[in-house]
């Protein structure tokens, strides 16, 4: 403190006035800066913080959406523990996310590695692979539902041709989730484009040096490519898990009303939340579900992030 006053005497007047030791120019910048970010700040408070607090409050009540919420303490959370459908939804959602996200990352990596080769037609592949992530999910779901239909679609013609059984994907509780995992792979193109950009950023000199040392392409992938890709993979996993837990649209369109069938095999967490809030009039219970989703998403993101110290390679230079 003393040293600073001596070194920077010009700051002393501001300090004496007790204004957070900011110069006039800094204070002006702070005011202008806050003014510029105010649209975000207002949105943050009104559309994020307030709803989150509101959700917590409602989650301690019995509330149908009309009239006054009735305070019931922790009952909603207690009921959750004994609610079989809640656990079904948790299981389905984790099952879906645990399959869709890693498979998606592997598919995206294969696509990106293939597109990273010096082929003249790569822009065509990139466009074809990326377009399904851009089009509306509901239209993709309409056509996908028919594609995998056992009699109307062509997907099962391949299976039969390969000697596999004619699976009723969305009619059979054993396969409905797997069909959703396959549908999710249509979004892998976007991840592939991100991975491809990261691959292009790896310096060629590293590969040349490894080649001179006699490392095979396989070794170069595991020794250079994959370690340098880990930061992007981390980003994809965190975002992918967060989005995977939110799966809704596909299920809503495919499984009818109320969504989640057949035999609750596609009853995903957000679908269950939606059913409670807007079909069963259990807003309080839905708020408790929402709050749990919020916490679980953040905890999973944090866990993946913390795990990164063991597997993500950060350049030390």
């Amino acid at each position, binding site marked *: 403190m003393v040293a600073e006053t001596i070194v920077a005497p010009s700051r002393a007047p501001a300090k004496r006035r007790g204004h957070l030791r900011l110069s006039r120019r*800094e204070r002006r910048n702070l005011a202008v800066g806050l003014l510029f970010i105010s649209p975000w700040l207002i949105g*943050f408070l009104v559309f994020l913080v307030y709803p989150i607090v*509101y959700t917590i409050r409602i989650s301690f009540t019995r509330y149908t959406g009309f009239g006054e919420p009735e305070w019931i303490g922790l009952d909603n959370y207690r009921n959750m523990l004994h609610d079989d459908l809640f656990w079904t939804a948790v299981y389905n959602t984790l099952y879906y996310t645990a399959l869709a996200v890693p498979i998606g990352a592997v598919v995206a990596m294969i696509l990106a590695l293939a597109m990273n080769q010096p082929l003249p037609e790569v822009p065509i592949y990139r466009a074809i692979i990326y377009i399904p992530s851009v089009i509306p999910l509901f239209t993709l779901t309409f056509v996908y539902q028919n594609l995998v239909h056992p009699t109307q679609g062509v997907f099962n013609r391949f299976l039969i041709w390969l000697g596999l059984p004619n699976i009723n994907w969305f009619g059979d509780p054993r396969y409905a989730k797997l069909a959703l995992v396959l549908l999710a792979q249509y979004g892998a193109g976007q991840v592939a484009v991100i991975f491809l950009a990261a691959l292009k950023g790896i310096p060629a000199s590293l590969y040349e040096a490894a080649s001179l040392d006699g490392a095979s392409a396989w070794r170069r992938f595991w020794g250079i490519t994959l370690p340098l890709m880990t930061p992007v993979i981390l980003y994809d996993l965190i975002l992918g898990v967060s989005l995977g837990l939110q799966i809704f649209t596909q299920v809503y369109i495919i499984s009818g009303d109320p969504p989640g069938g057949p035999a609750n095999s596609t009853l995903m967490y957000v679908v269950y939340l939606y059913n409670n809030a807007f079909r069963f009039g259990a807003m309080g219970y839905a708020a408790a579900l929402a709050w749990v*989703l919020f916490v679980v998403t953040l905890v999973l993101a944090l866990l993946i992030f913390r795990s990164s110290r063991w597997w993500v390679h950060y350049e030390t230079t």
Partner: protein
Amino acid sequence: MANAVPVERAQPAVRASARRQWLAKYARREIVPRLLLIPLCGFYLLPFYWMLVNALKTNEELSIYPPSWFPDEIAWSNFSRAVEVFPFWRFLGNTSLITVFTVIGVALTNPIVAYGFSRIEWPGRDTIFYLVLATVFIPYPALIVALFDIFAQLGWVNTFKPLIVPFFFCFIPSPFWIFLLRQFFLRIPHEISDAARLDGASELRILYQIIMPQSWPALSAVSLFAALHAWNDFLGPLLYLQDTSKYTLSIGLTFFQSQSRYDIQFNLLMAASALVILPVVLIFLSFQRAFVEGVTVSGIK
């Protein structure tokens, strides 16, 4: 070549191994990638092909088993019938209105916020920016109970307001777009804006007259992402729109195809879906670079 004997003896072996190496490299660079990419592209194209083929099939051909890969008789009339069995133009108008206002909201506020996070130095700026980035991990469905109740109390349910107004205030996924713009703004040299500031230009003027004109790639990418978000949104309209006359294409088509009383044939659903996709595909193909660059900038830190 001069000391002939040893080289002469070694050459066939060397040549063979060189050829093998060349072949291995050729296979790795040209054959294997294509063997992977071409079938996978088939997988990614299949929905589009199947949509188009079915949009053009007659009702009789729809029920054939096994399904035909190409329509025997091309029924172009499916498109004109599709826009009649659905209130298609109404849904299109609603969707377009929401999309236009969402883009206006995003284009109006996101650059200003991004400017505040990149071109003005103020204490605490970068800490708060981490908070902005962290909000992308907030799951939107965790907010729907509260947001619905709040909008209901405001009397906004069954209007477009809940779908538009939040985007004037950087609602998720705006943080991605702010990040993209900020990264772009940071790379613009400071000389001109500093000179303008010395001349007494306001920050807003610097943004609109110096920064924005240099940021078209980022601005167009963000506008495209915002337009797509609004055009493709499903959960939002499902929550807030109640009268079928207010429906967007997403929930409108879903509602009509799910009601057996309307008896929407699959060929008409596919024709309507093709019409929904068409502008998206056209915009994507014409602005491909903006898309790809935008997604890679916001995807990599």
